């Protein structure tokens, strides 16, 4: 049996100066303990990983509370705190990398099938953890994470099945964001300005959702197939249209409000920036989720045939899916206009035509007309709105 080992949980650095010493002590305990864990030989490391649930709660606390580059406040103001956070961030990541490694040396290893069973049945990894890792470490450790996540999905295919459950949960998250946005904006209607604290929470949640999803798809592109199967692409477009304009306008109102204090204004400006990142994240995630399952295989098989004409049967499923998704999104006008600015539909048509893939002209004309109509409506809507105060 393992001897009891007290794992402390990570909490965010405090804003109050007098809490700093206590936070530093707590964080340093965790830092030392993770160092101890990493110094253990393979067998002892895995015994603890498999049997010590508190270790996972501690690691999980860092994934939950740990900093993201899109957070409104990062601990950059205090060098000491920043150093400890960085050291912790590094050690937590190395622990996860070690837990994704079944062969450390010629002697220290376990069979892949045993490893696969352990990480799945003992919840060493689950989908939220993988999403958290991608969200936190993705921007600066892309190649390493791609290798790690792909390896986990390869050795344990059950995670791919779990992705379907995850997609269902993600859909619920989207719906809750829409609902909460409606409630927050409604609550501020009487005063003309939403309550900043509530608005901030929902915006941060939205930003975290969009950035995490995009980073995960970017790091592990095969996930796009599952997301597409669950129509996450269409749901993303719907989320974009339903909340992005209203939330951005809500934040803008807070910035311009006479009642807002200096801190709220400052945070509001940052939040507008983060919301733009979230919009780009949705556009890019949508693109990946649509392109990888629908278009990419067609271009690949076309390339392999060295220019020979694609048969209608081979191309029909992918093209049909592609056309159906774009057509379904034509009602999401704001999204379509933004998406078209980054990934013009005509470019995709041209790409498919170059690959000798037949598409019904009536349907493409309908989509092009729909896009033009969206552009006109959105343009007239934005031009009739008063401009932001400089």
């Amino acid at each position, binding site marked *: *049996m*393992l001897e009891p080992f007290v794992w402390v949980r990570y909490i965010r650095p405090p804003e109050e100066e007098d809490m700093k010493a206590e936070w530093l002590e707590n964080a340093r305990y965790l830092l030392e303990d993770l160092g*101890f864990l990493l110094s253990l030989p393979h067998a002892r490391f895995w015994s603890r990983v498999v049997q010590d649930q508190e270790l996972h709660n501690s690691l999980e606390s860092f994934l939950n509370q740990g900093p993201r580059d899109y957070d409104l406040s990062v601990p950059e103001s205090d060098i000491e705190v920043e150093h400890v956070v960085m050291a912790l961030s590094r050690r937590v990541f190395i622990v996860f990398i070690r837990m994704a490694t079944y062969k450390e040396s010629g002697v220290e290893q376990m069979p892949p099938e045993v490893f696969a069973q352990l990480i799945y049945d003992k919840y060493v990894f689950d989908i939220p953890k993988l999403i958290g890792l991608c969200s936190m470490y993705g921007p600066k450790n892309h190649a390493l994470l791609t290798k790690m996540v792909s390896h986990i999905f390869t050795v344990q295919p059950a995670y791919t099945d779990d992705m379907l459950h995850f997609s269902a949960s993600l859909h619920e998250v989207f719906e809750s964001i829409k609902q909460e946005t409606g409630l927050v904006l409604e609550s501020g209607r009487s005063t003309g300005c939403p309550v900043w604290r509530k608005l901030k929470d*929902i915006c941060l949640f939205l930003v975290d959702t969009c950035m995490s999803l995009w980073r995960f798809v970017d790091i592990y592109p095969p996930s796009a197939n599952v997301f597409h199967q669950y129509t996450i692409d269409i749901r993303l477009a719907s989320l974009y249209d339903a909340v992005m304009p209203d939330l951005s306008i809500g934040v803008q109102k807070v910035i311009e409000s006479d009642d807002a204090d200096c801190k709220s204004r400052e945070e509001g400006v940052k939040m507008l920036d983060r919301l733009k990142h979230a919009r780009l*994240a949705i556009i890019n995630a949508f693109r990946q989720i649509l392109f990888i399952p629908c278009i990419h295989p067609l271009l690949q098989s076309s390339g392999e045939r060295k220019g020979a004409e694609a048969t209608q049967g081979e191309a029909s499923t992918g093209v049909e899916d592609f056309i159906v998704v774009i057509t379904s999104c034509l009602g999401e006008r704001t999204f379509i206009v933004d998406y078209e600015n980054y990934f013009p539909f005509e470019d995709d048509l041209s790409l498919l035509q170059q690959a000798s893939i037949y598409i019904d002209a009536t349907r493409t004309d309908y989509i092009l007309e729909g896009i033009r109509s969206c552009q006109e409506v959105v343009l007239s809507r934005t031009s009739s709105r008063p401009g932001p105060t400089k």
Partner: protein
Amino acid sequence: MWVPRVITAIRAQSSISNPLTYPSKFQHDPVTLLLKRRDLTEKGERVRAWERLNHEIGKRRDKEKLALHLVKELRSFTHDLCGREAPEATVEDACALLFYLFNEKRVVEQRDIGRLRLSFGDVSSSSANKAFKKVKELCASLPETLLEEVKGKSHADVDETTKLKAPFGADLKIDASVSGPPFPPGREDALIDF
């Protein structure tokens, strides 16, 4: 301080997440969640069988000798079952049997056969042979290192000379920094200005 993270929300509502790791804000009944996750009635049994088996095997140093012993016991047991029409045995079935052998008596008596068949199912001789083979492979593949009984130490007890001597991944190229501007997924100038 609450941090609005999507992984927290997903964990709270998803049946695929570890039911034991929930932030207090989203504390749910772990048992309900556990039961929601896949088919755990059977799976839970298997996991427990593995745990017990690992624990038992962990007490023995000579893995090969133990594997031979297991197969011998299995062969002796399934001899009574040979010739019966039955579904094919799987590794999991064999594990369940091993679990029983180790935890209950280790010597199978005739009166246990009926009870064992409930979990093992009837097996034909060819299926039994397949099961033996699988069990043998399984026992051989059980990594000794995984089964080592570990006595954990608190960090205060660790010998300072060995502590952090050669931590795993010391030379991994990782950028763990979070300060600086966020990393946008592309240019922002083409977005509609609300």
